[in-house]
């Protein structure tokens, strides 16, 4: 059993969703309930494989586990290398949790134009892409999975989205495609400029993320800065970092609920994960030079996102801008180049995934009931749908970083880390960032509480007061939301559940910086 897991576990987790999708492709479209069952069973099976993997994972070791290294494209020595360590494990777990919840949630509320078959197939393809990105240890393999994620999301927004879906989906796609085109050029530059290794008796360049930190040491700092710049664009657009964020509010607002949830919970993390997994360990020196700049954009993002939130009248758009702000904290944590900062970043990624995912779920359900998310038209949610109001309240509190809930452990250590940034970074500069970021949390509290006040408190507005459609949380919603609620509280009380997993791997990564 263990041998099987070692050799096939990760590949199974990556490709099982595709098998499910293939089965669904041959089942006729009319048989909707069968499609739902197949999709759910597949995603649960993937989660089962995940649980087996997590159970067999050695949490005290920092390196990659379940490593598989097979020949894939011999001409360019790109290999099928997959592995999991403490940095990817929380991300994989998050993906495996969110996907089944999304399938459960959509059970009875497929957005127009319905077609559960296509919708669920897209979700499963998305799952393959997401898990694949988190386990890939070869730059080309990573790139392929990174791109596989794009398409299902493009169609999900474009076909099942809101009124301006076509504009939003195209914007989403073009932004990310631009980033990934630059990213692949930097990957190739990295490939050609790094040292060669012996493969099957021939000296060849390598795409292996495991070997590259060592092989790339000889790259001149000038070239390294450019390469880092290309990756910065690729990952930064996905995060999104401040000036490249404008696709996000549109994509989130127009996406169907489940699309928003997956986008917020997992897709944004692909960018930050790329920084931690690829950019930092392979080009540490360039990372040090770029860090003050990234930190600057991160805090601008925190403040800018928060100010935009204050100006929003649409609840979904507000949550989207709050994502910009929260991802700013994650990027600030990364830019400090310290162990604690990156631990905070990974925690922040998980926390943001859960909390914002939940917020989008609730917003989606609210939209279904009220047919609008215009904050000024809403009100009195606690009276009309008390459970939903409480869940929204808890998510809001978690999102603004209340201690005891998950959000706190993403933001607070990141701010703390900025107090004493890693070697070679200006302490004064990062302390300024720290102060600004701390101000950001105040703004976060104000926009979130203000939103909550307007939506949940008071009495329902006249137009919805006697609307029989407005019911409290229903069964599938409970089913989809309970695990997230529990996790937000549990991780808030026992943050070590994550820090313990991530720390050994991050300590290992930070060796590149001489820490």
């Amino acid at each position, binding site marked *: 059993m263990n041998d099987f897991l070692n050799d096939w576990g990760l590949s199974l987790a990556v490709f099982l969703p595709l098998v499910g999708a293939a089965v669904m492709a041959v089942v006729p479209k009319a048989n909707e309930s069968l499609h739902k069952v197949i999709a759910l069973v597949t995603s649960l099976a993937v989660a089962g494989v995940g649980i087996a993997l997590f159970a067999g994972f050695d949490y005290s070791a920092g390196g990659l586990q379940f490593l598989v290294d097979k020949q894939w*494209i011999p001409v360019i020595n790109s290999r099928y290398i997959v592995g999991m360590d403490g940095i990817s494990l929380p991300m994989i777990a998050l993906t495996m949790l969110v996907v089944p919840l999304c399938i459960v949630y959509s059970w009875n509320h497929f957005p127009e134009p319905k077609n559960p078959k296509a919708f669920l197939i897209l979700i499963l393809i998305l799952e393959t892409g997401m898990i694949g990105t988190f386990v890939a240890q070869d730059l080309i393999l990573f790139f392929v999975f990174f791109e596989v994620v794009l398409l299902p999301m493009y169609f999900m927004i474009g076909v099942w989205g809101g009124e301006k879906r076509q504009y939003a989906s195209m914007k989403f796609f073009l932004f990310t*495609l631009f980033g990934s085109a630059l990213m692949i050029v930097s990957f190739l530059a990295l490939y050609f400029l790094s040292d060669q290794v012996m493969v099957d008796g021939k000296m060849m360049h390598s795409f292996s993320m495991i070997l590259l930190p060592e092989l790339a040491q000889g790259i001149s700092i000038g070239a390294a800065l450019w390469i880092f710049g290309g990756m910065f664009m690729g990952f930064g657009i996905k995060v999104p970092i401040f000036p490249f964020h404008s696709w996000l509010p549109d994509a989130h607002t127009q996406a169907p609920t489940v699309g928003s949830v997956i986008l917020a919970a997992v897709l944004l993390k692909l960018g930050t994960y790329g920084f931690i997994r690829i950019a930092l360990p392979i080009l540490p020196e360039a990372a040090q030079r770029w860090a003050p700049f990234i930190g600057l954009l991160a805090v601008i993002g925190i403040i800018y996102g928060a100010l935009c939130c204050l100006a929003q009248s649409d609840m979904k758009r507000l949550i989207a801008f709050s994502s910009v702000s929260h991802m700013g904290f994650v990027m600030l944590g990364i830019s400090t180049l310290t162990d604690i900062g990156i631990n905070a970043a990974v925690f922040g990624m998980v926390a943001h995934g859960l909390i914002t995912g939940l917020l989008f779920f609730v917003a989606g359900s609210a939209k279904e009931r009220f047919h609008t998310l215009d904050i000024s038209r809403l009100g009195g949610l606690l009276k009309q749908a008390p459970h939903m109001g409480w869940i929204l309240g808890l998510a809001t509190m978690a999102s603004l970083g209340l201690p005891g809930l998950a959000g706190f452990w993403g933001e607070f250590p990141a701010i703390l880390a900025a107090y004493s940034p890693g070697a070679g970074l200006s302490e004064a500069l990062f302390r300024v960032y720290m102060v600004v970021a701390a101000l950001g949390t105040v703004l976060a509290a104000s926009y979130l509480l203000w939103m909550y006040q307007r939506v949940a408190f008071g009495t329902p507005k006249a137009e919805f007061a006697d609307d029989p459609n407005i019911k409290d949380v229903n069964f599938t919603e409970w089913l989809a939301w309970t695990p997230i609620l529990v996790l937000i509280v549990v991780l808030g009380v026992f943050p070590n559940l994550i820090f313990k997993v991530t720390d050994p791997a991050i300590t290992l990564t930070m060796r590149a910086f001489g820490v």
Partner: protein
Amino acid sequence: MLAQLATFAWETPVVDLHAIAPEIIVVITLCVVLLVDAFTGDDARWTSSSIAGIGLLIAFIPIVTLAMDGSERVMFGGAYVVDDFALILKSLFLLSAYVIVLLSTNYVAAGDYWEGEYYQLLLGSVLGMIVMASARDLVTMFVALEMLSIPAYMLASWRKRDAKSNEAGLKYYLMGVFASAILLYGMSLLYGLTGSTLLSAIGEVINASPTTQPIITLAIVFVIIGFAFKVSAVPFHSWAPDTYEGSPTPITSFFAVATKAAGFVALLQLVFIGFYGREDVYGPVIWVLAVLTMTVGNLLALRQTNVVRVLAYSGIAQAGYILAPLAVAGVSGAVGVASLQAIVIYLLIYASMNLGAFAVVITVARKTRSAEISSFGGLFSYAPGLTVAMTLFLLALAGVPPAAGWFGKLEIFSSLVSANNFAGYSLALFVAVNSVIAFAYYGRLMRVMWMDEAPDSDRTPIKVPASLGFAVVISAVFTIAIGVFPALLTRFTESVTLLGLGG
């Protein structure tokens, strides 16, 4: 003169029948189609396409045996060479011609066009192409070029009663003849300079002259421009969109894939055998051509409303990507090999994804009788299979994994970056930016298919004839298989090399 002739001893050239078996089989097929067509009545018209298709597949057999044999065969004093390069491109020509026969079967039969003649001309053109893949001599190249072009001029105007088709043929003919003239002038300069028509001999003389003689520059530039017309590189592309739109759609796909590939084959042979040492001349010329071609092609494609024209302009842009590695090919031997293989790989992938896209367009046009983008509205609601296939081909053209195009683009990027100089990096950046621009129109077509309503809410399903369905399926299988396992393709291209690279 007479004395010279008198002393000239005639030697019978050694003809390696195995090596030229594919050509011979195509000739025989052509004759069979001709005879069967001449001696049968209207009720047996359908045999033409079957015979042509089967003949093309039979011609593929000796290519397999030659590849298994593996030795390089040189004939006619080096003018005709069958090596890995020739074999892989011959298989490209034969297999894409087979797919084009599949695309033509219903189109030609339904359109009340002359069937026998159509396939004869098609086979004649294919013959020119497979000769081109082996031609290592200016005269052979020119003969091959005309052999593939002249039938193509007629095929372009096959829809006789349609003014657009006549325009297509005439434009193509005039531009083609013009290009031939320029090419011939360049070739005559080369011959005058070097005293030989053999590319390898030309290469020796040209590479040995240390300085850039203006006349060498002129000759190289003229020859490149001559073929730039064939591959529809900007600014020599103006014929392409009109010709593509007016020609019968299967012939359009033939131009977009096979004819273009033939032009590239000629360019590759010229650059890698004839001019390899003169990077100072062809490098900048091709750099400019590549940048112009991809950028202008993409920008014009954005404005098109007709799918065939979109594909035409996208094909122009793709030609720009394919040209790009050639601009840096001379930097070093390793970069040269990388560029050559990148181009060959891209040509093969381009053939599968573009033929697939055309197959879907032809199938859909059977129902909608139109190639306007709007006529694809709501395709997903009544033909989900075709929509998914078309999406796959468009993604491949856009270079999004896991459809095959990404690997072609990766190889191009990789050869450009491996040059590690300004020309390489700048071209890589141009390709990157252009890939994003290109998605705007590929994505628009996808959007129309997936997200728009069917025009007039007409959702009657499309009847897909077996031959078209088969063409879509093989293109799709090839596109996805290469995208997921690029090693399937690279194991055949790994050994591709040409003389200038020491091959």
